[in-house]
């Protein structure tokens, strides 16, 4: 136990914030589709495609900002495909999501081999800048946490606020919430349900893309095979745990970031690293079990007309 407490310090929280950011960005993206009633399991693939494209574009242009844009566009392209098949063609959300994830895993590898002649990893050469808060760095604890963080960390935190404002203070947010809560009612109010859902899918693509780019251009400057390793799903769990509210999702993401950071810290100690690596995933399962009694993903997977019908009581 001492082992565990020994690693908890302000630095750990700084690392937590850093590791939470990719999850946070994708989860904020995911909460938009969730609010609109679309279960988005393609976040993983969107992130991965963005991580690769971001790195590749940076390599080609020499600009990490161009990489950020390229990554987001690639991710949004996949989001558009996801929306096309699941919303327009009414194909099963989960199956389409699986296909998108598979596509991203394959395509990033094919492209990496084709253009970088490697199967492992490559470095784009540059990365997104940190923002150093001069005087703040010297403040104990606070300085350790936020004194020097990547620009996307701040963007992520800003997006939490923006998501909150847009969701609860604008006509668009009102429409998104109504579409997710009662699509039939929204439709009778003259809202084009499919279009609102499609827009949220594109938003999730943009934000998951940012999250992916943060992996390859945030603190390291490297893309490696399958580097998202489940973060898209963890993001999905985070927004479920956060009840798809921006604040709740942010807190859940920070919790998962903390689990991640703890894993990294413990890895350097005597504990078997493999067990430590399981922590974020086990934490995710635990979070899902805790939240499931309240609200399940499954309920969102059903059409509302179906969930209104009498439920067979299991004896």
């Amino acid at each position, binding site marked *: 136990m001492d082992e565990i407490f020994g690693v908890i310090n302000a630095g750990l929280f700084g690392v937590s914030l850093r590791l939470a950011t990719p999850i946070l960005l994708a989860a904020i993206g995911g909460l938009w589709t969730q609010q609109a009633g679309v279960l988005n399991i393609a976040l993983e693939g969107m992130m991965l495609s963005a991580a690769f494209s971001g790195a590749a574009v940076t390599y080609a242009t020499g600009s990490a900002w161009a990489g950020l844009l390229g990554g987001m566009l690639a991710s949004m392209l996949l989001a558009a*495909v996801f929306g096309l098949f699941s919303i327009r063609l009414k194909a*099963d959300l989960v199956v389409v999501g699986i296909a998108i994830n*598979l596509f991203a895993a394959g395509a990033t590898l094919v492209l990496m081999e084709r253009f970088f002649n490697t199967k492992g990893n490559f470095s784009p050469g540059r990365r997104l800048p940190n923002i150093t808060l001069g005087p703040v760095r010297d403040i104990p604890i606070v300085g350790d946490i936020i004194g020097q963080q990547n620009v996307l960390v701040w963007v992520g935190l800003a997006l939490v606020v923006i998501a909150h404002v847009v969701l609860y203070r604008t006509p668009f947010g009102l429409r998104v919430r109504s579409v997710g809560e009662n699509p039939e009612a929204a439709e009778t109010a003259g809202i084009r349900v499919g279009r609102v859902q499609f827009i949220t899918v594109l938003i999730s693509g943009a934000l998951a893309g940012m999250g992916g780019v943060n992996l390859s251009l945030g603190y390291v400057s490297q893309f490696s095979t399958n580097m998202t390793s489940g973060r898209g799903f963890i993001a*999905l*769990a985070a927004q479920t745990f956060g009840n798809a509210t921006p604040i709740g999702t942010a807190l859940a993401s920070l919790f998962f970031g903390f689990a991640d950071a703890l894993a990294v810290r413990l890895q350097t100690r005597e504990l078997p690293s493999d067990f430590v690596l399981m922590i974020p995933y086990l934490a995710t*399962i635990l979070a899902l079990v805790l939240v*499931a009694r309240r609200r399940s993903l499954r309920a969102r997977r059903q059409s509302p007309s179906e969930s209104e019908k009498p439920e*067979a009581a299991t004896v």
Partner: protein
Amino acid sequence: MRARRLIIEALPPILSLLAALLVAALIILALGENPVTVYRALLFEPFSSLRTFGRVLEVLVPLLLSGLAVAVAFRAGVFNLGVEGQLYLGAFAAAWVGFTLAAPGFLQIPAAMAFGAIVGALYALIPALLRAYFNADEIVTTIMLNYVAFSLTNYLITGPFRPPDAGSAQSEAIALTAHLGRWLPPSRAHIGVFIALALAVLLYLLLYRTTIGYELRMAGANPRFAEYGGVSVRRTIIMAMIFSGLLAGLVGAVEVLGIQYRFRAGFSPGYGFDGITVALLARVEPLAIPLAALLFAALRAGASIVQLNTELGREVVDVLQAIIILFVTAEGLWYFLRRRRALWASG
């Protein structure tokens, strides 16, 4: 009559397949390669010689078994996206029997396979129980458990079961008596093919000729109807996941006993996920799964040829698979997976 019906049933998947090949061809063109070369390598060359066909059979086994594992859960309305993790644990369990137990082959092989299957099933039971009793969605839990399984098996071979002469992340070799017979030298094609084919038939019999299979299909097709008819949907879901886990565990066990002869970290190139594509393309019909698996086995075998002849990596097959899934689901045939619309007009 029957033949016509079969054609009508088989036509949509074939059309989706063609559409997917067309879209993938455009992508290949965009990457500066010739789609004809690529498709010849993927679809014809694997069947051009006994050696390459043997390679197809090697890959066929895990794809077929994994397709069955995914299908049995799908039929009950459960998404088992955790086949990959379950097969890792099954593989380790089988390897453990292989390198610790000294017994004649007729005992050791069944023991290793049974243990692998059981361990896979036990691992699948976790998300099944979480779904049945805590309503925790299996889509995310099964995927999370995949990562846990990778770490867990890695721990086992680098920790308590680390072989004395260990260079890379792998277990000790299994005993010679545990090897599955190879029958098409020089390829590594082994008798697992027949086991897998037999299991496809068995799964067909399970689904269509047993009461459990009937309940499983009905629970997937319309859970309320099943409940009304006195079927416990909860129990059925758990059963389906156990069957799925048994098959997933076997994927790993057979791969260890037939090809790898030891447990290696990262030995599966995603067979558990390929199973999803296989099952979907086969429209979740056990007897069509061997055909779908054969196609993807050819793709996988052909992928190495593609890698040799073009600038493309073998992962081009993953891309192709993803596109196939998209088209197969979009044709709207996955009625039992699709959101059911309210059919009834009240008033």
